[in-house]
């Protein structure tokens, strides 16, 4: 279960677990988290839970809810996010989120989630926008390019700015391609009939990691590889 580390004006912090479905924060003494500050609205913000997510939502407060320095209406809380309301600072701590692979393991949603009215009726709506579930990889790749030495692309610089870039493509097919990987660029044969040489050596079916100034030959085309 996630919790909030609550600090008032830099004083000794206290913890509060997010143990109710909809946690109300505000100046009103009835609130789950009572924030005693005249700049806080009576019912200022709420944190509610949807599946694995805790979502903070401003309840139309006078002075706003600040998340990591920016005013927000609503936000899916991430581990170590900081919510500021008046003189209070609330840090969101989700120990499950820290071990992020937990959230990659496919699991069947529990009955509590399934019975939530919103699921069944909308789940198969074909006109709903499709969710992009691809995670941010945080992977960065070096920049590389080819210089055409002979063949149709002689004299041209070919940026290797996509995950794969085809080489010496013609109507009859794609003889070879370059794959961009975190550790560098690899050349591979695509067409089984093609022959791909790196510095004069036939690579066969192997994927060959390229080094600066390597020369690639594909049929009658030649390229020089360089890192930017």
């Amino acid at each position, binding site marked *: 279960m996630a919790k909030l580390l609550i600090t008032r004006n830099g004083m000794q912090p206290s913890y509060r677990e997010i143990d109710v479905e909809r946690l109300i924060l505000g100046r009103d003494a009835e609130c789950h988290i009572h924030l005693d500050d005249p700049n806080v609205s009576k019912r200022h913000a709420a944190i509610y839970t949807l599946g694995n997510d805790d979502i903070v939502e401003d309840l139309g407060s006078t002075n706003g809810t600040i998340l990591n320095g920016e005013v927000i209406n609503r936000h899916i809380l991430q581990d170590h996010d900081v919510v500021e309301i008046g003189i209070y600072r609330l840090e969101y701590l989700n120990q499950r989120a820290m071990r992020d692979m937990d959230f990659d393991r496919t699991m069947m949603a529990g009955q509590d989630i399934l019975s939530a009215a919103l699921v069944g009726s909308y789940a198969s709506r074909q006109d709903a926008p499709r*969710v992009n579930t691809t995670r941010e990889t945080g992977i960065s790749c070096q920049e590389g390019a080819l210089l055409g030495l002979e063949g149709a692309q002689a004299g041209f610089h070919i940026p290797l700015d996509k995950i794969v870039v085809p080489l010496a493509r013609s109507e*009859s097919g794609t003889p070879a391609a370059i794959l961009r990987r975190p550790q560098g660029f690899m050349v591979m044969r695509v067409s089984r009939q*093609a022959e791909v040489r790196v510095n004069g050596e036939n690579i066969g079916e192997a994927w060959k990691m390229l080094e600066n100034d390597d020369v690639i030959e594909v049929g009658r085309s030649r390229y020089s590889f360089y890192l930017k």
Partner: protein
Amino acid sequence: MTRYDYESTSATHKGMRREYNEDSFLVDPSLGLYLVADGMGGHQAGDVASRLCVDAIQKRLGETLAHAKDDPDALGQTILDALNHANQAIRRGPLFDRQQANMGTTVALVLTRGDEAIVAHVGDSRIYRLRGGKLIALTRDHSFLQAQVGAGFVSKEEARLSHNRNLVTRALGMEATVSADVGHSRVAPGDVFLICSDGLNTMVSDSDIETVLNELNENLELTGQVLVQVANDNGGHDNITLVLLRAQEAGSPPPAAAPRGLWQRLFGWLFGK
């Protein structure tokens, strides 16, 4: 009616973080059946569930397909029947092994018949189609996150921050009866179908998948290997399994390769290679 030949390949890998591969797949050209299943449940029960799913569907369709009428609706019913058989097989499983309680599996399958491809899925395994250079998803995930977005509770942009991407709302083994999405797609020459577990599409963007399919699909086997490699290069948080199939009109040569091969063989012969 145009008849098609299908070239197919498969690739599977446990990824970079998991100890076991709990995905299963099937490539059965004689039935025209191509399938990916992503198992879940503790103590490797997911592996048991996804295998039970593959075996039960293959066995049942092996018995029933020969008698099924050749129209998409009838074939869809035949597939639903096979999915229900698999569901029961998985739900019977726990009687023999308490550890397998609460096991389940997603399934995404393509059945080719004449010029139609019947697509069916339960859970968050996907079926994509590449046509004319554009990749589209033919399935919509049965996931909690997709439901939240569909209901307007979460925007597409916010969805990237969600921790709910892994929660499926439907799976085989989960309930007494199966609720599957079944559809069909008229095949066009050169269509490439990609069936995959979420270990691919959570690690590789749709646009990168599209690029890889466009540039490499002349060598389908390499395409599959590269997609798995890219998923692992991006972190490989989950098992990665995919099946690829490409349609070509029956009797036509595979794209691109043949003329060049002939020319190159001649060239090689002339120059003594």
